[in-house]
């Protein structure tokens, strides 16, 4: 960072009347507070609708809603999101198993081996670009690469979600590896340990809480994704515990289908599914926060 351009002259004009300056400051501070309230309004409104309308459906005749199959005739009232819940868990779980190990390995390459080399810088940059690829594009990509040949399955959805999660896990893991102090590595080398052993037994365990927390946030985002699943998992209404075989379903995909339905019964099930999905993602986020807090305690 050698570019020492002159600091821009600050536009600090204090010649106006003091009362006007103080008033302006108050107005601007007020606007900032208003901005915060403006953000709070939609958040509260959405949670209000989801909890208000969702709870009535989801907890009527508990636990039917969470276990029954999805009605094939969508105008029929009554419970049923079980297959979609199982599908979401299956798809997201498999995506996590694919993306998290690969993402951690990729980050280990970037930080422990690649460092500031040209190739590592390229991968780092492209990984940042990849986080911006729209999720629907990932869905179509997996449709072409997998679904066209093997048909609808939960695994297709997992592939699409893992493509979305990979760059996020790489990014958050690398940030955590940066925080591991260099003297830990040096101490391990001094004992004659190989580099791979040092990474596996010293560096990664030291960074673990942060890595887990970052990965869980990626999982929470992935669990709510819809667009990549539209082309890859199908729309089954019955339970399908097979990962690789046959059409499956997911909460998000089912909410999308029901939201466009004109039948109140289907809309109600969408609200119930939305409540379930929001609870699931909030729960995962909460666990991530616990790990972050643990990290803070350690320091």
């Amino acid at each position: 960072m050698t570019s020492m351009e002159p600091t821009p002259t600050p536009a600090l004009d204090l010649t106006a009347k003091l009362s006007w300056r103080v008033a302006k400051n108050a107005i601007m501070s007020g606007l900032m507070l208003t901005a915060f309230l403006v953000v709070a309004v939609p958040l509260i409104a959405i949670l209000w609708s989801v909890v208000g309308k969702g709870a009535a459906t989801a907890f009527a005749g508990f636990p039917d809603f969470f276990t029954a199959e999805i009605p094939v005739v969508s105008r029929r009232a009554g419970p049923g999101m079980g297959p979609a819940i199982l599908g979401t868990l299956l798809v997201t779980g498999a995506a996590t198993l694919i993306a998290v190990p690969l993402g951690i390995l990729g980050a280990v390459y970037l930080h422990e081996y690649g460092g500031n080399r040209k190739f590592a810088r390229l991968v780092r940059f492209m990984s940042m670009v990849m986080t911006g690829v729209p999720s629907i594009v990932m869905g179509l990509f997996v449709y072409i690469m997998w679904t066209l040949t093997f048909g609808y399955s939960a695994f297709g959805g997992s592939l699409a979600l893992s493509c979305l999660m990979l760059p996020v896990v790489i990014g958050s893991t690398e940030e955590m590896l940066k925080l591991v102090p260099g003297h830990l590595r040096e101490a391990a080398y001094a004992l004659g340990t190989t580099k791979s052993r040092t990474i596996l037994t010293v560096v990664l365990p030291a960074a673990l809480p942060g890595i887990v927390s970052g990965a869980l946030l990626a999982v929470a985002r992935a669990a709510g994704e819809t667009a990549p699943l539209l082309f890859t998992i199908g729309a089954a209404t019955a339970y399908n515990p097979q990962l690789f075989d046959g059409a499956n379903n997911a909460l998000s995909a089912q909410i999308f289908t029901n939201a466009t339905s004109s039948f109140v019964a289907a809309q109600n099930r969408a609200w119930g599914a939305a409540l379930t999905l929001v609870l699931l993602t909030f729960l995962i986020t909460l666990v991530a926060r616990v790990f972050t807090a643990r990290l803070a305690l350690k320091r």
Partner: protein
Amino acid sequence: MFDRAMDLRGSKAHADTAFRWGTLVAACLVLLILGLIAVTMTNRSWPVLSRMGLDFFTTKRWAAPDGIFGALSFIWGTLYTALIAIALAVPVSLGVALFITQIAPPWLKKPLVYIIDLLAVVPSVVFGLWGVLVLSGKIQGLYAELHKGVAMLPGFLIPALVLALGVFILLGQRRSTAGWALAGLGLLLLLFGRTIPQEIFGPSPQGRSFATAGVILAVMIIPIVTSLSREVIETTPSNEKEAALALGATRWEMIKAAVFPHSKGGLVGAVMLGLGRAMGETIAAALVIGSATGQISMNVFAAGNSMPATIANEWGEADSPHKSALIALAVTLFVITIVVNLIASTIVRRSMARSAGKRA
């Protein structure tokens, strides 16, 4: 070099090399996936792209049964809704970021950040569900009122107000870019486009429209724009802020003199990343944009369609050439968002590097 100098590892050397290659392969996966996306999707969409040629991007007629695919109206819808979202989200995000970093007492900062992050966790399909079943019904009354209000005003009034605002800013600060931009825009509208405000706030046939999609997208990108802005603003060196305060500046004057000049580049980058997100968002837009194909309208209250929304809505009943056209839409979207993101991350990186250099 280091490895070779003290090779005390004996038989473990193989495991070490294998691990190293394993990490390299994982890192290469990023490049592989991006490359494969570009190649396979272009390949799949080629039948339509080669047949339609440039017409795919420059005409608006989209008629699957006739095999005619012009994506212009979807490109327009994508850009227009993203612009509405940015126009709504940026002032709010900036305000929240400034509130959290400059005004809120330290004990309040963390809870405030949590609340904003909570918004980022809500799945997009839930925003869409709320948008289509709750918001779009309630907000139409507001649209109708806005349309009536703007239609009642004399045509020159809004351009004149924009011009006046620009001149007012310029009187206070002669070199303000925003001031010149507003004044120029007001003057242009006053001379050539006095009906444009009335066209923008046109009649509202239904609640699902560009504007509703813009509102939902704005809520969805506020968390990311806020958190990036917050990071950028926090790199302002405290000695510059304290210098301004020591000269007797109020907090707002300090923000103008120290925070804004310092973080301008990073804030532009944050806004562009938000723009990329807004353009790629599918599900929420698909539910509230109104799915009106072939609409290119300035009227924010008209129903329209965007590229990702069209893909999501039409995929189910698409035959083979239609699917190929939808994949062509995805390729277009991919290219646009990649370009926007490349520019954005370059700007952010540069401004971060510069401020790091200044501090050192």
